[in-house]
């Protein structure tokens, strides 16, 4: 993980963080930019890029680890956002969530295909210690949003956090997570779900 300074990721428009993720006004703004992109508005898309590229690239980097590959993943993700912008449905989640979901899937596909064999050879502890917070501690300070996320993460049990970390940032399947953590198959998926539900409720994401 890089030691680059954090982004004021949650509030690029200068709106103080509300209680539910990206502020409603940011969410609406991003959705509007997506709608304009769907009509072929490249300036709107450039604005969308500027508002989200740090989060998208950061997520790709966190999952694939290699900066060059992270760049490719982010590029693929943004192109897909552009191509499929007309298919974004605001009734089924926020624009940011749609974008991050798309990027995450691309990143996970990348690590599972090309990089899979070598990456899997390295032990979990070599790659993941320390789990979660400490990895991101350098990036947590400035953003209110990030602080809120961290607080929510603190509300999870250690084992929930560990399972979510491996699944979301590690790109492992729940079966692999179970194996890494020496859990019976089926336990990891429960932890991931319970942890995400708790995270959702603590962060006030509408369910």
């Amino acid at each position: 993980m890089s030691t680059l300074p954090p982004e004021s990721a949650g509030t690029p428009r200068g709106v103080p963080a509300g209680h539910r993720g990206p502020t409603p006004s940011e969410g609406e703004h991003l959705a509007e930019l997506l709608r304009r992109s769907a009509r072929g508005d490249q300036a709107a898309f450039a604005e969308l890029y500027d508002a989200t590229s740090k989060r998208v690239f950061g997520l790709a980097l966190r999952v694939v680890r290699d900066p060059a590959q992270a760049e490719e993943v982010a590029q693929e993700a943004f192109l897909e956002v552009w191509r499929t912008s007309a298919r974004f449905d605001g009734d089924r989640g926020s624009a940011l969530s749609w974008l991050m979901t798309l990027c995450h899937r691309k990143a996970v596909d990348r690590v599972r295909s090309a990089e899979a064999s070598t990456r899997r050879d390295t032990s979990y502890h070599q790659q993941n210690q320390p789990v979660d917070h400490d990895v991101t501690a350098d990036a947590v300070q400035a953003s209110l949003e990030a602080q809120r996320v961290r607080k929510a993460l603190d509300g999870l049990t250690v084992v929930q956090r560990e399972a979510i970390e491996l699944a979301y940032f590690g790109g492992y399947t729940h079966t692999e997570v179970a194996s890494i953590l020496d859990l019976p198959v089926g336990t990891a998926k429960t932890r991931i779900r319970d942890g995400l539900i708790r995270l959702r409720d603590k962060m006030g994401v509408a369910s």
Partner: protein
Amino acid sequence: MNVDIHALSGAYAVDAVDDLERARFERHLADCAECRAEVTSLRAAAGLLAESSATTPPASLREAVLAEVATTRPLPPVVAAAAERGRSTRRRFPALVAAAAALIVVGGVGATVWHPWTDDAPGSDQATEQTYTADVGSATVTVVRSGDQATVSTKGMPAAPAGKKYELWLVHDDRYVHAGEMTGDASQVLLEGDAATANAVGITLEDVDGPPEPDLDNVIGTVDLEQA
């Protein structure tokens, strides 16, 4: 609600599933509004985790993305069949050189005589299933029509070359109305639009990012829906 599969919602939301589990869960999602809502909310929560990882990308990424965007057309929205019918009048094309119902084969596939056959006598109830098959090169294309709906299945259809896809069209006299697409062998692709009044189903080979009009120089074949 299936309790077992419901428990997979979290893993699915963060892509912590293998391909089989994903396919299985997505089939379940189609029928389970509760799971759909849960996945949406869990994805939103997971997406916020990335707030802590925000990292400034190299400037080259912005240039690369915007350059690519400038030469890429956004895909059309997914529209319901009814909307597609209303839209079909806007998808007008110059009259086909050859009669639409006739077989057109180009691109080295080789002309073939269609052998459509039907289960039913012509003029029978529209809702009755009618099946038409035809050979396209080494592939067999089957169209099953029932009322205003039709599906296309293929056997032995080669995968579309990189950057290309097959587009499916319902041919109404001189008009090709977009009805679906596929990238290779496909099973029961449900066509959008009104198949009841179509004369034929056409298949063209198109650029993945090509315009929404059919490339009539690349018609792989048409299946006549009027012969019986």
